């Protein structure tokens, strides 16, 4: 079990680190985009069309890239009174059942995410976002919505990867409560505060 958990945990640690780096940058750019919108509208008196959609684009990707880390570190809101109140083994079993049911949701989700992103709807043109290929002498291309839709699809895939890691951790703990588990990369501040 640990033979699979170790590498998976390593992969999750590194992939999610990259996700978080992109995610916080996305949030920072969102702020800049909205401030630009305010500046253009009120100071230059020239409203821009794209900030609304661009900021939503970034928000969706921020969510998709950040949420898996939150899930890995126990940041998904749950009433965990019952699993904690049960005897250790029973509580651990219940946790496992919950994780497997969640995996079910994610697997169905990833299937629909694929259709959502690569199916008919993804072919819609964004109403205001363009890839300015005219800067390099080509024609400007409207961004397809699939690049926005992919945020949730990617989120589902990352959540599955985290979920499997959590299941493995849970199984290991079920048989050996004192097992040495790989580090989950959670920073100290997060564990302390929330």
């Amino acid at each position, binding site marked *: 079990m640990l033979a699979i958990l170790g590498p998976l945990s390593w992969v999750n640690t590194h992939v999610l680190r990259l996700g*978080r*780096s992109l*995610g*916080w940058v*996305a*949030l*920072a750019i*969102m*702020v800049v985009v*909205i*401030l630009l*919108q*305010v500046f253009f509208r*009120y100071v230059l008196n020239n409203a821009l069309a794209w900030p*609304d959609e661009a*900021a*939503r684009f970034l*928000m*969706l990707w*921020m*969510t*998709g890239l*950040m*949420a898996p*880390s*939150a*899930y890995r570190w126990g*940041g*998904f*809101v*749950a*009433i*965990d*009174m*019952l*699993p904690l109140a049960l005897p250790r083994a029973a509580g651990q079993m*219940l*946790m496992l*059942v*919950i994780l497997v*049911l*969640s995996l*079910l*949701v994610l697997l*169905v*989700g990833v299937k*629909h*995410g694929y*259709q*959502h992103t690569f199916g008919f*709807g993804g072919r819609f043109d964004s109403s205001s976002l363009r890839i300015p290929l005219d800067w390099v002498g080509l024609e400007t291309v409207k961004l397809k919505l699939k690049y*926005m*839709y992919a945020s*949730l699809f990617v*989120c589902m895939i990352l959540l599955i990867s985290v979920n499997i890691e959590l299941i493995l951790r849970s199984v290991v703990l079920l048989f050996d409560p004192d097992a040495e588990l790989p580090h989950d990369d959670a*920073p100290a*501040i*997060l564990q302390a*505060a*929330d």
Partner: protein
Amino acid sequence: MLAWFLPVFLVFLMIGMPVFFALLLAPGLLLQINGQERDIALLYRNLYNGMDSFPLMALPFFVLAGELMNKGGITTRLVEFSQALMGHLRGGLAHVNILSSILFAGLSGSAVADTSALGSTLIPAMERNGYSRRFAAAVTAASSVIGPIIPPSGIMIIYAYVMGESVAALFLAGIVPGVLVGIGLMLVVRLMADKYDLPKAERIVTPGQEISRLESGVAFVLLRLNLAGLLAGIFALIATSLATVGIPVSVNGWLVFLVFLPIAHLLLMRLRRTVSQDFRIICKKAVAPLQTPIIILGGILIGIFTPTEASAIAVAYALIIAFFVLRSMTLRDLPATITKAALSSATVLLIVGAAVSFKTVVSLSHAPEHMASFILGLSENPLILLFLINILLFIVGMFLDAGPAIIILGPILGPIFTELGVHPVHFAIIMSVNLTVGLATPPMGLVLFVASAVSGEKVESIARAILPFLAVEVVVIFLITYFPAISMTIPRLTGFVQ
């Protein structure tokens, strides 16, 4: 068949499944059993669409602004300021805890943030001052629900988003109810102070504090601008009311403001002579942080920015203050702080999306229509129905987080009461305040868990100690319900509600 969505959902929730998964699994399972596989696509699409919204963007921005302020050491300033004002009363630190929450509410939109930020400073301080840890944690949890009632408010952003109301109107309507909850809690502390002989505290915690030239100057200017603005605003209100009775007063807003500027200066200089040096510095140090709610509300009121833009401005302001005025942050702190805000907003946004998909399946089952006719069958008197709904909401708030509860129940309950003549903004406040109080009730009381984590006290014992405070909050809920003027006066006066 689909009518089982709620019980099944609650079972998943009670066994400890994360809200996000329970919101998707319960309806998904029922659709599958019911042979409606094609509608599972609807579930997925609405998860995405539920998050894809411009007004919702105010959520991560306000969280980020709160994180930046917190990192900037602003919490301590607010607590010291509150203590300088109320520390000398009996039950001093309990009052300070409540007042800090009212002030902190103007910077943050979440009760959880309030509990963790204020709790970590105030609970140990109260313990040292002779309070039981249980009581300290209870006061912290009870007062933190003010956070999302006074603007900015994550819950009201969500309400406005699902119900198509104006965020600005809801924000303005929340001010008085939030202060009222604070006053109610202070009354409880006052009564307990007599009964249990609660201690007083020093007004000045750390005497001889220093303030940088720049910050002092910024506070000097801001104080005068705000006071002059306030006086000019009052003058404008009087002028408009005179105009409605037929006495036309035509005034240039900027001119009035300029006239009031020296008056404000003179008033402040007078005030300055009556207070001690230490008191003055502590007050000055609270000016920059407390400017945040004024920027947010002022900007929305004057109409220069939308609530989402206001939230981005709040982030910019927090950055400027933290980097240049307080110099409490460096560029190196920035990624970690933004990451923290992004992590917590991502989970909230996912839950919002999942709640929107859950709501969609509720609609497919025609449950809203059945529920509406059931409720209207109970009584035709809106006052009685409001009473019943408050009880329902209170029970729902015990089990469900405020955001999902609003997304699922708002579209069902809102139209019923609007039809009965309750103003939509008034109903929004009733529902938001009620569900916010639910954050401090077990078993799903998030702030109880946070207060427990911060204080090290058991959830059960905090839950018992919080009962008198909850009782007062219930009274305030009914006051808000039966006296619409409490919430509606400010939005009416400012023209955000006709």
